[in-house]
Structures are given as C-alpha cells and as structure tokens.
C-alpha cells in the first residue's frame, strides 16, 4: 500500500490556524492500513485539535469523516452536501487523495495532515517497509523477486557492492543487503547463472515520465 505518517501537530496547527470550521477527512484504504489516516487516526487528530483549541481559548469546530477511498471521485462526492459549511479541509489522505479532493472541490482550501512516504508492505504489525519505486518497468523476474532499485541503497543491477557484510547493507545495518538475498535465492533455486550477463542500464524515462505520468484505458472510459 501507499504509506504515510502524520505530520507533527505543530505543522498541522500552523496550516489550519486561520480557520474555525474544519472538515477532517480520512481514508479507509492505504493510510488506514498503515495507521496514519484511517477512521481511528481521524478521531485521534480531531480530539487533540479540539482539546488544544479549548485550552488556548480558541473556537474550533470539527467534523470527522472517513471515505472508503479518497482518490476516487465517487467517494469524494460524498462530501458535497456539507463541504461548503467548512472553512478548510484537513485531509488525512495520501498525496493523491489530498489532490483528488482539491480537484473535485476547486473552491475548497485543502491541506495535508500526512507526509506520504512510499509504496510498501506490512511486514509485521507496526512495521511497514518500502518495496516499490514505481519504475514502470518491473524487473522482479530477473532478480528473484527482490527489487534492486528499491532494496539496494545504490540501486545496483549488478551488485553487490564491496560494502556488503553479513547480509547487511553498509549504509544502514538494519537493512538487509538486497544483493545477498538475490544471490541466496538464485543459488538455492539453481539459477545463479542468471547473473552471469551484465544487466543493462535501466530506461529511467519510464519512471520519470515527462511530468506526471498517466495511464488511459479506452475500454474503461465512458
């Protein structure tokens, strides 16, 4: 899923400082999974903001809403009936969700409560690890399902580097060396020969695009 973390409260407070009536909108998909922007987190943030305002003698009126997905029009539309009553929208969606809401309601002031980070997996309860950098040209088949771009700090396609030690990355000893893992897996499945040939340089244009990338499917369009 897409992972994110809540911004420090001071940053959020600064963004909503000019406003009295705030619509706090969460998302029930990715950010709920990583415990950053789901219904519970919306409740926690709203509660903290209300208590903070009360202690400072400030007026603050908050409505809490959590959409199933904040990046899809059909769900965002559910805000239509009451959004105009609010001065600002504090979105706990990922970057895509925040912007999607702003596009559906161009007159609304929408600010982000989260710092969106990476595409990852829930490795265990409370631990999310980055797995994919969206390069647009998946090579996992060549590397025993270990992404060299994401999991190798130097993004080597012909690793390992000289700093691999005890299966750990020299840059961060908490991080396993991706190339150790690739080699181990290939060795165990008798496929080490796959590494004999020099893997060629990547086509980074597939990741960079010419500005924001897009996907269109005519068969899916109305």
């Amino acid at each position, binding site marked *: 899923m897409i992972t994110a973390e809540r911004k420090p409260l001071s940053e959020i407070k600064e963004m909503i400082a000019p406003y009295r009536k705030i619509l706090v909108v969460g998302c029930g998909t990715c950010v709920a999974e990583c415990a950053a922007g789901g219904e519970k987190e919306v409740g926690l943030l709203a509660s903290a903001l209300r208590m903070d305002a009360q202690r400072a003698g400030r007026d603050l009126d908050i409505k809490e809403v959590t959409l199933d997905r904040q990046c899809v029009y059909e769900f965002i539309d559910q805000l239509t009936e009451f959004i105009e009553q609010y001065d600002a929208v504090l979105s706990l969606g990922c970057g895509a969700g925040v912007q999607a809401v702003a596009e559906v309601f161009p007159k609304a002031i929408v600010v982000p409560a989260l710092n969106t980070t990476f595409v990852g997996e829930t490795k265990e309860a409370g631990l999310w690890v980055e797995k994919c950098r969206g390069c647009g040209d998946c090579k996992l088949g060549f590397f025993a399902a270990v992404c060299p771009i994401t999991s190798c700090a130097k993004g080597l396609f012909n690793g390992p*580097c000289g700093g691999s030690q005890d299966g750990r990355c*020299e840059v961060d000893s908490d991080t396993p*060396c991706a190339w150790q893992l690739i080699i181990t897996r290939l060795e165990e499945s008798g496929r080490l020969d796959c590494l*004999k040939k020099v893997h060629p*340089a990547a086509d980074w244009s597939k990741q960079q695009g010419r500005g924001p990338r897009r996907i269109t499917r005519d068969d899916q369009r109305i």
Partner: protein
Amino acid sequence: MKGESRLKKVLQEGSFAVTAECGPPKGADPRVIEKKGKMLKGFVDSVNVTDNQTGVVRLSSLAACVLLLHGGLDPILQMVTRDRNRIALQSDILGASALGIRNILCLSGDHQSFGNQPQAKGVFDIDSMQLIQLVRQMRDAGVILGGEKLTEPPDLYVGAVENPFADPLSYRVLRLEKKVAAGAEFIQTQCIYNLVRFKEWMEQVRDRGIHEKISILGGITPLKSARMAAYMSDQVAGMDIPDEIIKRMKSVPTDKQRAEGIRIAVETIQALKGMKSVRGVHIMAIEWEEVVPQLVEAAGLTSRPEV
C-alpha cells in the same frame, strides 16, 4: 591519440606494477595536488585520484588528474556513478581522454549518506559494471549508449575494484569474472591484511583462469596506529583485519606504531610480490601520501621499469 597509459605498458611487459592513491583537497588550491604528485613521481607507475570519496566534496578527480599529467605522472581517473547520470559520465570520459588521461577506474561509489552532503540526490543512473561495459564500448566500438557513433573514440585503459573480503564471499570470484566479461582490464583490490584469506581468494581466481584475463593489483593501506586498526576493523564494512595484526599494533608503544604499520605493509607487499598471479600493488595511504616512497623503497620496488 597522444600519450599512452604507462600502467598498461608496465603490465603488458610483465613487470610488477606499483600504483598509489592521491586524495584531492577540500579546496581549490592546485598546489596540494602538485606537491603530492612531486612526492610520488618516480616511485609509482600510475596515480589514482579519488572521486569525491565517501561522498565528501573535494577537488574533482578529472581536474586533479590533469594537474598530475602536467607534472609528468600517469593518472588513473576514478569515476563513480553516484553523482552523475550517463550523459555526464560519457561526456567526462570523452573529456578525460581529450585531456590526455589514459586510465579510468570504474566504481559505484560510497553512498551519499556517508559524506558531508547527505541531502544530495544519489544518481546511480548506471552501476559500476555497466560503466565498465560502457567505456569499453565507447573505446572499442566508438559508440555511446544507444549506439550513436562518436566522432573520435576515447583511449582509456579500463579498471575496476573488487573486495575479496566482502560478503557474500562465495560470490566474490564470480563477480570478478563478471567484471572481466564486462571488459575490465585491471583490478585494484580492497586493502589486504588477511593474507591467508587473500591467498584463498587468489586460488579460486587462478582455478577459473581469471588471472590470465585481467591484471590484479593487491591493495595496501599502511596502518598509522593501533586505534586506526581497531576502527577500521569495527567500523568499515568489508574490511578484514586479523587479530594478530591488531595485537601486533597494540604491542608497540604509540610513538612506534607508525613504524610497525609500515613494517606490516612492507611484509604484505613482499608477500604479494611472491604470488605469481598478482601483477602489482596499489598503495592507498589516505592523507599519508608521504609514506609511499618509504614503502616502495623498503619493499625493493624503487627501480620502476623504463617503458
């Protein structure tokens, strides 16, 4: 093309080569490099200049190599893929050759988080293996990545590094083989303290016939102190310093430790000289370049061949 690689000639005629490393300054003063060059001249066949080693901003390797050239030395341009994309790398390869540099060492480079610019974007457009292949392709086929023809190919002797002491150990020889297949012509290894392990590695290298396809130069870094030995052993990934060496350094009073470190280095060089498939030594005396002439002398390598 004017000028030829002295290193290539020395190795081709079968002499035991001596190369050393030269660290550029953290400033714009060319005299630092000129001084180091003067100190090394005559004692070594070629001089490496590091490329923003450890991600620390220093005078560029390319510029420093040109300064050494003017001083009459044969520089080895170290080029990392951390800081430049393929456009810049290929451009610098052409520029280096045009300026008369005849040797290049291809590396991925230390991660930017180690240096003094940890917020910099690590480029890593291509890796060291792809860079080796690229330089060979530019030189021998006269084309850049993608196949477009160059008007004049660069003339560079292509080298790479390998660390016999890094994990996964069993894969290190295969990786060296891959570098040979990619086109590397000489190798400088990570610094050697554990001769037993190095000899084992060389045996595997010989078994696969790699020593005949590529010139291997053993890396040497003289220890300055027992503290340095302990630090390197603990903190530097991919470093193997046996306990006996650390004990030896510790057994000597602090003011005598440098001399002991030099003694150990000379012994290691002698051992490398005695190994028939090792074609030379690469001395990495980081910020201690003054010790190189002493080491070369003590190891009986001062008569550099006439080429």
